[in-house]
Each structure stands twice: as C-alpha cells, then as structure tokens.
C-alpha cells in the first residue's frame, strides 16, 4: 500500500512538472483606450505562440507608477518584466533591482536605437521599446502673418529667434504670443531648456565625468537666450496649457513631442501646422530624447521567458502596431521606422530625423537630484531674481556636492 502511495505521488508530481506553466508578471503604463487593446492582443499572441508561458499584465499610471515599481522591488514582490522610463534605468541598475542584460542583448543591438539610454557603467540593463523627442512646431498662419513665405522654416537660432520676434510683434495685439514658455513644472522645465543648452555646445559634466561644468559660457548664453524668449515673447503656462494655446491659435512656436500630433488628430484640430528640427547655432541643433524601455527584475525566476517576451513585444511588427495605435513617432526599431506609416507623414519624419540629433541626460543614479538643481537654476533665472550666470553657478556647486557625496 505504501509503495502504491509513493508511486502515485511521484506520478502526480511528474505530471505537474510536465504541465507546469510559467507566469510572467509584466508591469506597464499603457492604459489609453486606443493603446490598451494592442497591448492585450500582443500579450494574447505571445501566449498563443508560447503555450507554456502566461503573462499577467499590471497597468501602472504615470502619476504613481514609479512609486509602485520602487515599492514592488523593495518588497520583493516586483514584476518579472517592467516598463521603465529612460530616466529611471540608472537608479534601478545601481540599486541592483534590474538585471544586467549585456550577455543577452549585447550582440543584437544593430537594429535598434536608444541603447545609450539603457547602458549604465558599460552594461545594458534594458531593451529600447518606444523612444521620444521634442521638435519645433510652428503655426504656419502665424508665420504668414509675420511676413514669411509659405514654405519657410528656421534653420538657425538667428532665424528661429527672428521668427518668434516677428510673430509676437505682428500678433500680440490679437492675443498671439511668439513663444510657448513652460512654467516651473517639475520634470518638464529642464527638458525644454536642455535643447538650448546642448545646442550651444554646453555640457553638464566634463567628458571624464570628473567635474560639473554647468555654468560654462555656452550654458550661460543658452540660459540668457531662453530667458529672453520667456521674458519678451513667452506665453507662460504648463505644458498642457501651452499646447492648448498653440492649438487655439494663441501661440506661434512651441517645442513639443509626438503627443501633440495625437491630440491634433483625435481632437480634430484645425491648425496650419509646420514642424522642423530644433535649429541650434548651426542646423540642426540638439533636442532632448527619452523613451520607454523593457527591463527584467534581478529577482525574476523566469529570466529566459522574460527575455523571449521582451523580444516579442519590441519586435518591429509589434512596435509598428503600438506606434499606430498610440500615434508614437519614434519606434526604437530601425526596421519599423522604414514603414510607409512613418515615411509618408511629414511630421513623423521630423521626429524620425530629430532623434538622430537628440541627446539624453547622463545615465546617472543621482540624476533625480541633478535634474532638480538644473530645474531650480532655470526657475531662478526665469521667475526669480537670479541672473543666468549666478543661477547656473549655484546649481553647479550643488551638483558638485552631490557628486562628492
């Protein structure tokens, strides 16, 4: 009897092992009704193609998703696969929460953009999924009002500033401002300033990362010019407020992302839109870039399955489906970028070109503190009594202290 019982247990256990399924926990941010069905169908197709793997999707929100990820990792109940913003990768990599994927992904980087943002101290920690950058949007009617011909677009800072000045001069009496200038919004203001900063040739750190050089002459010039636009021609509001004003015809020129194209399409906005690369002293300048990445938890017991999954999600075909649903302009896949969807749309083309001339902030676990200091300097110069040079010098000293710590 005892032998029969043991045999039965062994058979049951063996059966259980054969039919065991792996469940992957995936935490992601896309809850938009236009995008969520695509996410769900990608997951369903993956599960059909891999019957031994289930994927459990948890939706996060942009307002508290970061907190949830941190708490999830800290409590040991984090996901296997997690979507991370480019700014967060260094933080999670440095704290050992996400896995080093260099050996798994390092040999297959050629077909994708954005690896620089996923690389911390020489190791790759995530796979690029959807990237993003900012381009210059102009209201063509306002350009015409200011005396520019119907195809003209600025290709240098001199022309860019002149266009803003002339739109403002011609339109202010009708409530039209030349430039949409961001108020002191956390995580947003510095992203608008850094394109000016980089385009003037300024750097946050020396190349060897030994010193902070935030208050260089080029940086001061960038902040002076940014402040001038703000003070003289600026319609100052939140990013959303600036975009509303632009779409309502109250602002001539703004710096914005691909979400603006989505708004124009979904809200059926009637605007004579032009888009161009961020100009710089010489064309083109350097815009800001970021993106969404897929990383694997260091604690995951299903690393191989997770790798298979992120490769599936970030495949060119699935990126294309995602971009079409979300109207995203910058898939990380170079193959996806060649699709007629991007090639036939002049504004999406601007984004595809711009990302080649865009920079990302240093991949640094202390970036949250550094970002704060840069933002404070810009805020002091724009809204306080600080001169650009003194505001940047103060921030440089603070960042140097952070680096020393």
């Amino acid at each position, binding site marked *: 009897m005892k032998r029969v019982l043991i045999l039965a247990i062994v058979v049951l256990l063996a059966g259980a092992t054969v039919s065991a399924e792996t469940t992957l926990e995936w935490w992601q941010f896309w809850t938009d009704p236009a995008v969520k069905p695509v996410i769900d169908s990608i997951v369903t197709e993956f599960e059909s193609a891999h019957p031994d793997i289930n994927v459990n999707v948890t939706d996060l929100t942009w307002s508290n998703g*970061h*907190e949830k990820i*941190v*708490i999830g*990792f*800290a409590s040991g109940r984090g996901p296997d696969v997690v979507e991370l913003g480019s700014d967060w990768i260094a*933080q*999670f990599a440095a*704290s*050992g*929460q996400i896995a080093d994927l260099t050996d798994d992904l390092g040999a297959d980087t050629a077909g994708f953009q954005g690896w620089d943002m996923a690389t911390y101290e020489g190791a790759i920690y995530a796979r690029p999924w959807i990237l993003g950058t900012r381009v210059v949007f102009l209201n063509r009617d306002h350009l015409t009002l200011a005396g520019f011909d119907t195809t003209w677009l600025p290709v240098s800072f001199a022309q860019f500033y002149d266009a803003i000045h002339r739109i403002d001069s011609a339109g202010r009496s009708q409530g039209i401002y030349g430039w949409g200038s961001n*108020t*002191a*919004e*956390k995580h947003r203001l510095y992203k608008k300033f850094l394109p000016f900063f980089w385009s003037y040739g300024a750097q946050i750190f020396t190349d060897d990362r030994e010193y902070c050089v935030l208050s260089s002459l080029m940086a001061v010039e960038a902040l002076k010019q940014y402040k001038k636009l703000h003070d003289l021609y*600026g319609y*100052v*509001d939140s990013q959303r*407020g600036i975009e509303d004003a632009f779409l309502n015809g109250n602002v001539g020129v703004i710096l914005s992302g691909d979400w603006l194209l989505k708004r124009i399409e979904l809200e059926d906005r009637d605007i004579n839109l032009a888009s161009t690369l961020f100009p710089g002293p010489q064309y083109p300048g350097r815009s800001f870039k970021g993106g969404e990445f897929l990383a694997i938890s260091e604690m995951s017991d299903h690393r191989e399955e997770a790798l298979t999954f992120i490769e599936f999600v970030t495949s060119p075909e699935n990126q294309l489906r995602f971009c079409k649903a979300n109207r995203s302009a910058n898939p990380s896949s170079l193959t996806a970028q060649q699709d007629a969807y991007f090639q036939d749309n002049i504004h999406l083309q601007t984004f595809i070109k711009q990302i080649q001339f865009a920079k990302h902030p240093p991949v640094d676990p202390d970036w*949250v*503190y550094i970002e*704060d200091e840069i933002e404070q300097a810009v*805020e002091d110069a724009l*809204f*306080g009594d600080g001169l650009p040079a003194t505001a940047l010098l103060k921030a440089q000293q603070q960042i140097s202290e952070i680096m020393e710590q």
Partner: protein
Amino acid sequence: MTSRRLSRFLFASPWVLSFVIFWAFPLLYSLWMGFTDYRLLSRSGPEWVGFDNYVALFSDSDFLNSLKNTFIFVIGTIPVTTVIALALALLVNREFKGRGIFRSAYFLPWVTSMVVVALIFTNLFQRGGYIALLAQMVGLDVPTHGFLYDSSTALYSIMAMDVWMAVGYYMLIFLAGLKAIPDELYEAAEISGASSLRQFFTITLPLLRPVALFILVINSIKSFQVFVEIFVMTKGKFDTSTVVYFIYETGLQTQFKFGYASAAAYVLFVIIGLFSLLQFTVIRRRQPLW
C-alpha cells in the same frame, strides 16, 4: 478571564486590531525609521544613524523653507478663517428671509473635493482668469504670468483659497456654539442697558471659548498638514513647498529616503503637538481673553 470580560475584549478587538495594525505600528515604525538611513532603493537595509537625520533637516534649506512656508500658511490662514467664520456665524444667526440658503452656500465649498476646488482656483488665478481680471479692474498689480506663477503671490493665493473653502465649516461650528448660549443672558444684559457690542464681548465671546478652542486646534492641525492644494496647484514650485509636501517629495517621489522623510514627519508631529498645547494653555486660562 471571566466570560463577561472576554466578551468585552472580543467586542473591542476589531477596533484594537485595526488601530494596532494601521495606526500604532506605522507610527512606531516610522519613529524608528527616522533614526535610520533607510532608502527604499538601497541595496542594504536600514542602518541606525541616531539623530543624524534630525541634524541634517535643520541645515537643509529645502526643509527650512518648507517649514517657513508652513508657518506662514498657518499663521496667515487661522486668524482670518476664524474671524470671518465668526462674523458669518453672527450674521446667519439672525432672523432674516433666506438665511438657510446663505448657510448652505457658505458650507458648500467644504463638502466639495479639495482637488476640484484647487483645479477651479488654478484657472481663476491664472493670467486672464476671473480673479486676475477682477484685480486689474480694481487697480491691483497682477503678476505677468498669473498669481500662481509668481513666488511673491503663489502661497498667498493658495492661502486665500483655503480660507474661502474652510470658512463655511467653522461658521457652522460657531453657529452651533451661538445656539447653545441661553437667551436669558442677553435678556438680562438688555435690561441692564448693555449695548450690543458689550453683549458680544461680555457674553458671546467668553461663552464661545470652548468652540473657539476646538476650531483653533482643528484648524491648526489641518493647516500644518496642508498638502493637496499645494500638490494640485503648484507642485511646491514658486516658493510654496510645505513640510508635508517636502515629506512626500523626499519619501515618495524621486528620492525614496524613508528615514529622512520619517524624521521630517516627526518634526512636524512635535510642532503640531506644541502648537496645540500652546493653544490649550492660552485659551483655557481662567482670565478673560477679550
């Protein structure tokens, strides 16, 4: 344990359990965390650092600035709210047609969500908003980009909104206090020839003292903990960060310094305790205050 005592214990235990799990434990745990360097993103666990967090807080310009703003908020809003609430209570305590409508109207902001109110006022305070236009009409200087985008006006604008929102609630409490004062006292005062003003200072105010104490203490605690309006309207920018916003930023936003944030929370706890004690001591004096 007798069955009677056991049943008492069992009846009380759900509340005791929830108190221990959701209040007492977090309270003590955060007190302990305040003495550690605990960061949620740290590879290592929390390490005891003694009073280092408390020492660091008092040399942290962000914290000190938040503390300053919190005191400005408390000292600026409490007297104004209390005086206006009392004045309104005296007004709606009189017999006149439609006073029920006034009472409801004054109380309505209090039952509206703070987030909704804050969003509405964000629009009112912005450039071209009704408040900005009204200020211009009466010849006041309006900041170029609106009241909330200027360090010299942002905090005061939020304080004004807070007073508008809270005044109806405290009016209602004062009204309850007024109703509890016996009419005989006023009749006797009138027979003695006391003027209305004298009646107010010798009868109404002294008898409202317990109500005033309650309002001051409750309003102080609420004001020291101001957060939602700051979060919705300015995100702590334009010199509007308060202590609770600082705690949120430090502990839950980008830095995840739980130890440091817990220490800041306990500093606020002590301040609120001392402030309440001061109010109790002053208002419970036997001598008349007014």
